[in-house]
């Protein structure tokens, strides 16, 4: 594995066209306001590779907003998702631990994963809240992608990372001219990676690392959480848009069917029990709970990182809450 190929952008598009009859293809599209996954079609405009990050996290392909988990409706087409940033691929590792971990493998999730081929992309730009490298995640795909992609000038540099990815590109090779990239272009790929890392390091120079943040949260008192949660409206957007928040609600339907629907610990009543006790009754406790979960509790139980530094929760917060500012304040006062 890890074979590196090169194909022109024009042929890449023709290759995607040739796959349209047998799979749904999602590509990142710049709509002028944000980047979002769109269904690919021939001559689709606005497709952008190597720019972070699609608004929807990758998890939304595997844990849809609502899904019947008793009568699981099969996906008819296979899916090819192109342009997945490394923060989302790192988040997928945690989802896999939770949903595919023995002894309870979630069959709906398993099928959604099996039906999907993932093409990860290097990030050649950064956004103001990107901070993957602060948490030990490179701004280019290292794991969980079947294929990785870097668009350099008019060429697509492709690295095959899994058998699923190799099988896909065997077909590409049969129909289109595929070559090996030269040393100069590979050097350019590495150079762009370094530039992105340098920019992230500079942007997040005062942000404490993942384990250090856990320690700061452990030692924090109530005051900082009460103060910073004052503008939180418990909308749950931070959890909905997070690539690693996976909590859900089971909703009952007639004939003993159950629908899994995304849920969030930020909603009042999330942990309430029948007699009325609720460990998360107070807003600041709910607010803190999400960070305790990500930086303190999950690391004690799971191998994968529970915050991958995508920055979406900061982008989306209508209360203008930045977790990074909170953690920098904690670090400065420690």
């Amino acid at each position, binding site marked *: 594995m890890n074979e590196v190929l090169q194909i022109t952008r024009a042929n890449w598009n023709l290759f995607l066209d040739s796959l349209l009859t047998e799979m749904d293809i999602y590509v990142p599209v710049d709509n002028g306001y944000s980047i979002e996954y769109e269904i690919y079609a021939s001559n689709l405009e606005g497709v952008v590779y190597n720019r972070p990050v699609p608004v929807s996290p990758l998890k939304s392909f595997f844990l849809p907003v609502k899904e019947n988990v008793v009568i699981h409706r099969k996906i008819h087409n296979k899916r090819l998702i192109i342009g997945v940033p490394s923060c989302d691929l790192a988040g997928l590792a945690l989802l896999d631990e939770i949903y595919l971990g023995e002894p*309870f493998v979630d069959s709906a999730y398993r099928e959604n994963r099996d039906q999907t081929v993932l093409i990860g992309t290097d990030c050649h730009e950064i956004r103001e809240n990107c901070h993957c490298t602060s948490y030990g995640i490179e701004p280019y795909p290292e794991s969980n992608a079947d294929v990785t992609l870097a668009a350099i000038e008019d060429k697509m540099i492709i690295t095959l990372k899994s058998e699923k990815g190799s099988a896909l590109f065997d077909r590409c090779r049969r129909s289109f001219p595929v070559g090996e990239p030269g040393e100069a272009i590979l050097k350019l790929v590495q150079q762009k990676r370094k530039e992105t890392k340098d920019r992230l390091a500079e942007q997040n120079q005062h942000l404490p690392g993942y384990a250090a943040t856990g320690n700061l949260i452990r030692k924090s008192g109530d005051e900082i959480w009460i103060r910073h949660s004052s503008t939180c409206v418990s909308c749950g957007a931070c959890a909905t848009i997070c690539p690693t928040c996976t909590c859900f609600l089971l909703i009952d339907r007639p004939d*003993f069917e159950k629908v899994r629907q995304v849920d969030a610990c930020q909603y009042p009543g*999330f942990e309430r029990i029948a007699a009325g006790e609720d*460990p998360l009754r107070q807003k600041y406790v709910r607010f803190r709970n999400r960070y*305790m979960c990500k930086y303190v*509790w999950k690391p004690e139980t799971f191998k994968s990182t529970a915050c991958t530094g995508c920055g979406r929760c900061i982008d989306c917060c209508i209360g203008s809450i930045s977790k990074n500012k909170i953690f920098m304040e904690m670090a400065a006062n420690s």
Partner: protein
Amino acid sequence: MPAQENMYKPLRARVEKVIPESPAIKSFVLLPEREFAFRTGEFIELTVNGCGEAPFTPSSSPLEKKKIEVTVMKAGYVTEKIHELQPGEVVGIRGPFGRGYPLERFYGKEVVILGGGCGFAPIRSLLYNLIAEKDKFDKVTLCYGAKTPEDCIYKPFVDELRKVEKFEVLRSVDKADEGWEEREGVVTVLLDDIKVNITNSVAVVCGPPIMMKFGTFKLLEMGYPEHDIFLSMEKNMSCGLGKCGHCMMGKYYVCKDGPVFTYEEIKDQPDIWK
């Protein structure tokens, strides 16, 4: 281990009998469509078709595979719907889930059980198991408390239990009436009445959160080590699989890692008594 392949899919079970236990508590004898095995202390999710589901630890003997009994206090939407169930109606059950009572750690010891209100349900299942294996235990003492005499559940079972060799039953109510001949006061007062060799004893606690809290503190005060106090931590268990997050108690998923924990395991987790 779980009986179903798809753990979200309930097994159908017919309500065979409804037993009123107190003004707010009923027991339901269920006949699953196939045999259903569980270890005492493990829990099930009980589905009211199209309405919702809630977690309950069976109150019946784990040695009985054809029937399962749950005892339900009317406390919210789903439990209200359960209370409306009539014999012949069909419900769904999922599970069993979680980690039950580690009976092998009780062997050769005195078992002191502190129960309150509807918390008698998991305890009755445990007691059936202890009765079946009574040669393996030194002595079993049940301390049970309820609000009033009419809130005391399982009266026929208590009468039978009092006849079993090695088993002792003490009861208290918060507010006695004229006919009450046992203790008055919160359930922990019963612990003052028992004679127990703490160095060779384990304690089991199950009941409402406030009772769990003060019961545990009392046992610690009596000298029980933290690893010999076994608590049934009933939280908002939903999926039962350690995935949905509703029952998180610090690093633990109560549905998967519990519901039975030693106090030592959970004492440093947040808000354990809520």
